[in-house]
């Protein structure tokens, strides 16, 4: 009879293949539910560990989830913030009944080379590596287009429903800097026309892109800012993550479970 695959075994094989040392001081990349002893019947990678993702994983017979982001609606997955809300109990009860085990893969994914989140987003947006100015630079020089056409193309390719853009739709652009999630690059880089990313604080941060772009446009300086949404910007790379995990976990199925764009936009 085949040896039982445990969650701990999955994580130790992952650590051995990362190519970088494991940092035990991470509060992110830890078990969020269940533990190393849990027997694994199938693995789902996911962007956010939403209740919907957990349910669909359980339906598919996958009981180990490797999400990139949090499970309990705060980055530290601090239970004390949420445990008095009945929704917390509902979600946790479901996970217990279905013998779910959750291990977050965030910090080490961003430290790993290549960073799958960037690889996946560039693939999904059609930003071919032949356009990247240097490996891992995330800066692409593409055939000239307009900000409006570029944003439309990205939205279609990624299946976004609420992509938001700041800038002049008719501006001619070709130098694109890619960010993922909340890691939005600075828009005031003089070598860049357009920054693409997931999410950013709108104002009062380290560099407030919306205001900077509005003022640049008022001055006739070409700048554009395309925000895809945090979820869909990083969900793409969880496909690369699933493929990588599959390469060293042959015993059980491994699959990305998508949660998609959480939003819709009014007419």
């Amino acid at each position: 009879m085949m040896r039982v695959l445990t969650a701990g075994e999955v994580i130790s094989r992952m650590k051995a293949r990362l190519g970088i040392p494991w940092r035990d001081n991470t509060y992110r990349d830890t078990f969020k539910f269940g533990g190393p002893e849990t027997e694994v019947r199938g693995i789902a990678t996911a962007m956010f560990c939403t209740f919907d993702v957990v349910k669909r994983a359980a339906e598919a017979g996958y009981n180990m989830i490797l999400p990139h982001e949090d499970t309990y609606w705060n980055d530290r997955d601090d239970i004390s913030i949420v445990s008095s809300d009945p929704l917390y109990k509902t979600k946790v009860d479901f996970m217990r009944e279905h013998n779910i085990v959750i291990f977050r893969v965030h910090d080490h994914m961003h430290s790993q080379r290549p960073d799958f989140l960037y690889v996946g987003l560039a693939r999904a947006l059609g930003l071919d590596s032949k356009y990247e100015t240097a490996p891992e630079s995330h800066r692409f020089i593409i055939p000239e287009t307009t900000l409006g056409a570029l944003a439309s193309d990205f939205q279609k390719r990624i299946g976004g429903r609420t992509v938001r853009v700041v800038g002049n739709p008719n501006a001619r652009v070709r130098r694109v800097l890619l960010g993922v999630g909340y890691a939005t690059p600075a828009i005031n880089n003089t070598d860049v026309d357009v920054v693409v990313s997931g999410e950013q604080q709108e104002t009062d941060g380290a560099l407030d892109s919306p205001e900077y772009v509005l003022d640049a446009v008022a001055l006739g300086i070409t700048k554009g800012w395309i925000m895809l949404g945090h979820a869909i910007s990083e969900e793409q790379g969880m496909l690369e993550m699933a493929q990588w995990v599959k390469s060293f976990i042959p015993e059980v199925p491994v699959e990305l479970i998508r949660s998609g764009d959480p939003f819709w936009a009014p007419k």
Partner: protein
Amino acid sequence: MKTFSRRDFVTLATAAPFGVPAILQSRATLTAQEIVERIKQKIGTEWKTDGVDTFKAGDPATPVKGIATTAMATLDVLKQAVKAGANLVITNEPTFYARADSAVPSGGRRGVAAGPDAVFTAKSDFIKNNRLVVWRLSDHWRQRTPDPLSVGLADALRWSKLRAAEDSRLVAIPPATLEMLASDIKKKLNSRGGIRVIGDPKLSVAKVGLLPGTTPVQTALALFPLVDVIIAGEVREWETVELARDRVTAGERKSLMLIGRVVSENPGMNECAKWLKGFVPEVRTTWIPVEDPYWRPA
């Protein structure tokens, strides 16, 4: 020669600054610093000096000809202020694209070197050339009770009479579907593409919670049990967005509508203009809304 109709005369007589007594109009010595001191007296909360509510540009000793309030002092807003005859701009959000509000970017901003930047410099020059003074009012403004940002937002949505007496964030509206409400709000706030919604479009909503500005998940966790929909400016997507999505999955009849941080703060600075008129009668105060920065691709 143009003759004034009675109607013209009434308009002229009531419009500021003509409505201001001549003796006050001619007294051009009210400085930006003096106006700020009056604000500190009237704010109704202890003035703290360790926050962001400070002068960001210009000389505080400048005699003030007019005041403009705004959610965010963009270059477009500054130009409108000049046109309106205002030289003191009171802004709720930063002027120089960061909390630090420095006219020259500091280093370490995701790899961008410190040093002069064309956009920062042009804005700084515009402020100098037009002898503007920019002062930020943010921390203390949102500490007032009732919260002027939610009062203003309710007013902009024509819900002033529907607000709960005990909590300015709570509004009871005639039931509407979530999608009808979202479209209505989009029109009323002149939103272009910044509104994003989570929840069943056909959900009937009547109990509304207003969270203008930016709010952490703790605020949403406390508010959700009281309302059908939270209308917020900005939340973190790994917090309240996923919380709302999970509520929907769990079958709760809840929803979340994000309208954008600056757009959500616009009406609160209209409240600020009205408030200033009460104790700065010497000069005209004008509210200048910021356009929705966002559009959506075709």
